[in-house]
């Protein structure tokens, strides 16, 4: 059954942004901006490799149509459309005279109320699962710039071990506007371990655990983060408790 859990999770993640896009398309009016820089380059596509075919001059007004990572599609007064880099177009004014609030300003701190998906992988470094590999799929939501919630569905695979885990974690990231920013993690979850291919007696079966972690976020791009972390978890087994240590590395993206 568990294997379908991955599929269902993936399908839910896939479905979520679709709904959001449909909502946005319902609004016909586009965001109109006035360029305050001396000029803004307009390329034929969202990439460095595309040629510049137009230059928006200071004071000109443009509609912002679409966003792709690092690029915005704009429509000029002439009706032609093209792509401008996020770093150039973010220095613009709205028609009301306020600075445009495009989500391209700093690293982690603008991520409040944003969703994220990602994965991580690592290896257990102590306890019964020592040298077993693990990887997880992550979905997170950040209600505050310094605090996030994350759900994790993962696998544990070793030479004689197979198992699944899931957990819900709270992430505290006090300096989320730094490019390299430390984070603290506290969470609770469930771990279900079997032996493969032959029967090896294991202390850990289907158990709940508490986990604590220390990590470091490195914002490679505005919407892309590399996270290294160390986790220590306390597993409630039948008789007593087992402690596990794991080192992980992973990637996440925000939208």
């Amino acid at each position, binding site marked *: 059954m568990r294997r379908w859990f*991955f*599929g269902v999770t*993936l399908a839910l*993640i*896939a479905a*979520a*942004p679709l709904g959001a*896009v449909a*909502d*946005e*398309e319902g609004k016909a009016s*586009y*965001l109109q901006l006035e360029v305050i820089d001396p000029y803004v380059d307009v390329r*034929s*596509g*969202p*990439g*460095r*490799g595309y040629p510049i075919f137009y230059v928006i001059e200071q004071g000109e007004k443009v509609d912002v*149509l*679409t*966003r*792709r*990572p*690092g*690029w*915005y599609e704009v429509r000029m007064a002439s009706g032609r459309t093209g792509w401008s880099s996020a770093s150039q177009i973010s220095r613009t004014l*709205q028609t009301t005279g*306020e600075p*445009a*609030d*495009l989500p391209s300003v700093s690293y982690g701190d603008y991520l409040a109320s944003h969703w994220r*998906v*990602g*994965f991580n*992988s690592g290896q257990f470094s102590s306890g019964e699962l020592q040298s077993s*590999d693990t*990887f997880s*799929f992550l979905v997170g*939501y950040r209600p505050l710039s310094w605090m996030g919630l994350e*759900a994790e569905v993962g*696998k544990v*695979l*070793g*030479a004689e071990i197979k198992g699944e885990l899931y957990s*819900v974690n709270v992430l505290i990231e006090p300096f989320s506007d730094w490019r390299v920013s430390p984070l603290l993690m506290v969470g*609770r*979850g*469930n771990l279900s371990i079997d032996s493969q*291919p032959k029967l090896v007696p294991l202390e850990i079966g289907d158990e*709940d655990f508490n986990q604590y972690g220390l990590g470091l976020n490195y914002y490679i*791009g*505005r*919407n*892309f983060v590399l996270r290294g972390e160390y986790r220590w978890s306390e597993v*409630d087994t039948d008789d007593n408790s087992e402690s596990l240590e794991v080192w992980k590395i992973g*990637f*996440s*993206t925000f*939208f």
Partner: protein
Amino acid sequence: MENWIQHFLLKAGATALAGLLVTPVALAQETESTSAHRIDSEVLDLGVTAGVVNIADFNGEWALGVSATFQATENFFLQYNFLQADSSPSAYENNQGRLFEGSDRTFRHYDLLVGYKVFQGELFASEGRARLSSLYAVGGVGETRFGGEENFTTTLGVGYEAALTRDILLRIDYRAHLYDSSLIADEERSVTSNQMSAGLSYLF
């Protein structure tokens, strides 16, 4: 304690649902200063893949798969893949009888990859029409299930992507799936299953 977790997950689910219902209302009430949310973001594409997977110690088989790709930055992306293939009897099995039966004969693989677009540029398949294209490298982790084994898998690969239209992407991939197996030997040894595939994806 199981109840506590179920309770928590249920609550989290309810909160998420409430959030989805409230969001459109909140969007409608937004002032001009946060209207950047009105911009359509194109970051996710979903696709199907077909190709050949050479199952280690077995045959090359037709494989079908699905993928989801999140464009993280101009250069980096995250991709989730699932691939499935039915295995025919290997040469050894034709001689000696099948080693395993039933659902164990289905090769299933899924992985979580990070990709980097090494070369980005324009593809001129026809005159006067430039299509965005890129050569990329991927690496990541996943699981391979075959012959009753579940193995931690490291995946490495290269691929080429070209935008056929604004929304439809064509991807051609080579991937190597590396894992330890003891299917035909008593001792675990490192094996590689290779995948060559092509896929079509729709960018939302």
